[in-house]
């Protein structure tokens, strides 16, 4: 389904990043988020959800660990937990190509 979206040029990948407050791990995850968006060959939307402020959403999504980067548009949801600083690896995991490699 993502391929059909792609042809229309909308934000193709919608991810959610679950973090807890402003702990150092959360700040690292937010930095990584920026780099992922910049490195992606296609537009990516990564919504930030601070579970300390929005615990109900963590409950609904069944989040145990933070940071968690999650693609909830697919069934079953696809999740990456822990260290998301390896941009190339993250993009590959969510099936998105990297600017450098696609050039």
């Amino acid at each position: 389904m993502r391929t059909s979206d792609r042809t229309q040029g909308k934000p193709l990948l919608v991810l959610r990043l679950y973090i807890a407050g402003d702990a150092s791990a959360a700040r690292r995850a937010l930095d990584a988020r920026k780099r992922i968006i910049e490195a992606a060959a296609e537009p990516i939307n990564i919504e930030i959800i601070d579970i300390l402020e929005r615990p109900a959403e963590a409950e609904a999504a069944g989040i145990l660990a933070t940071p968690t980067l999650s693609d909830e548009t697919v069934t079953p949801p696809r999740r990456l937990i822990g260290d998301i600083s390896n941009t190339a690896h993250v993009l590959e995991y969510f099936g998105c190509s990297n600017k450098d490699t696609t050039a």
Partner: protein
Amino acid sequence: MIATEESAVDPVLERVKTGIEAFDDLVMGGLPRGRTTIVGGTPGSGKTVFATQFLAHGITDLGESGVFVTFEESPDEIEVNMASFGWNIRRWREQNQLVFVDASPKDRDELVVGDFDLAGLLARILHAVKAAKAKRLVLDSLTQLFDHFVADPTTVRRELLRIAAALKKEGLTVLMTAERNSEYGEISRHRIEEFVADNVVILRNALDKERRRRTIEVLKMRGSRHVEGEVPITLVENHGLVAVPLSSLRLEQQSSTKRVTSGNAELDRMTSGGLFRDSVTLVSGATGTGKTLLVTNFLAGGVAAGERALLVGYEESRGQLFRNARGWGVDFEAMEADGQLKVISLYPEAQSLPDHLLTIRELVEEFKPDRLAIDSLSALERIAPETGFREFLISLTSFIKQREIAGLCTATNKSLIGGQSASEQHISTLTDSIILLRYIQEGDMMNRGLMVLKMRGSEHDKQIRRFTIDSKGMHLGEPFGGAPDVFGDAAIAGPAT
């Protein structure tokens, strides 16, 4: 069963009742408020039932709501599985008395890279605690959480410590379950108990001589006393876990001096006035020596004196018991019709020994008899491992005495002449009186003999008396002339000279 004391006893530890009455007695009134208890057990040992009961009791009886964090079954599964214990989880959920945090395994692609924390879980728990205004919290089971993050046990351990500390700060009384690999091995996988628990409780479901034996044991109570040793438990429909208390916890019953008739005037004379009101008498003898007859006399004698009598039979059907009685001139039907007698016939194999004990207790609570006969203990012994049987006897005899009931139990000897049955060995120290019925050979004649072997707190006739049985019942006659050996394998009296 002895109470141990740790150094720092906090006299003001408030107690949180679990709803498992006899268990609360073991831990001096309940789990200490604001503390963390680990309940360990093998699969099927009743951990989830224990945990749910802890929450249910708070909700239904004490107005304390709870949070259930489930790592194993989904909330809907728990709702269904626990319904048979009479817990309406659906309604509690609707009224926010019970809030679930659903951390059960879900279908998802997941990859863990590097370091993470469980802040997500903690945030969800605290959110649920706030929603329910919870006082009690259950995490079931931690082992599943470790399995979820199987590559990072160190991280899970660190995070659990953090969660436990946060929950303690909230003043919650926390019960965490943990899986064990074996009944008598290490306390839990991942050694969870070592780093988070103030208290450790073990549930067991061990196989002992082909029988399941469920027990509960309090292993550790930080800063508090508890009773040591395994206590039998059973799962009861519409109730949950029931611990079967052992008598040694409360041996305060005082002995009465009031006598009641044994139902046989001659036997009353031999015992200097009959049996004591709150005593347990064992009648032991080989098959056919007249044990059931003695039971029948005992019941009829009570009813004739205006008492209520209860017979729990494990060997013969009701029809058979009624026919026997009629053969000795006793009309059980009329007594039952008058509401003075109740005869219950049970199949020993139908339930476990602790369940049998509960059945007897329920019957007694319901019928409120003045005297109770159990025929026979040997039939019950068949179905139980030895330790279980001894515990059963201790509980039974102390219960009978507490209720100030006159109890009469029978035990069957395996050999026809002389010999001791195992139940006899067990019960002889627990009963107040022992009556032996024996076949005694004299020359080429086989006669029956009766002897009062023991009578606590009273004088009694120590002779071995001849007796006969006819359509009017038992007739005690003269003592045997010689000195027959009623204990040995060959109970042969010397030839009458």
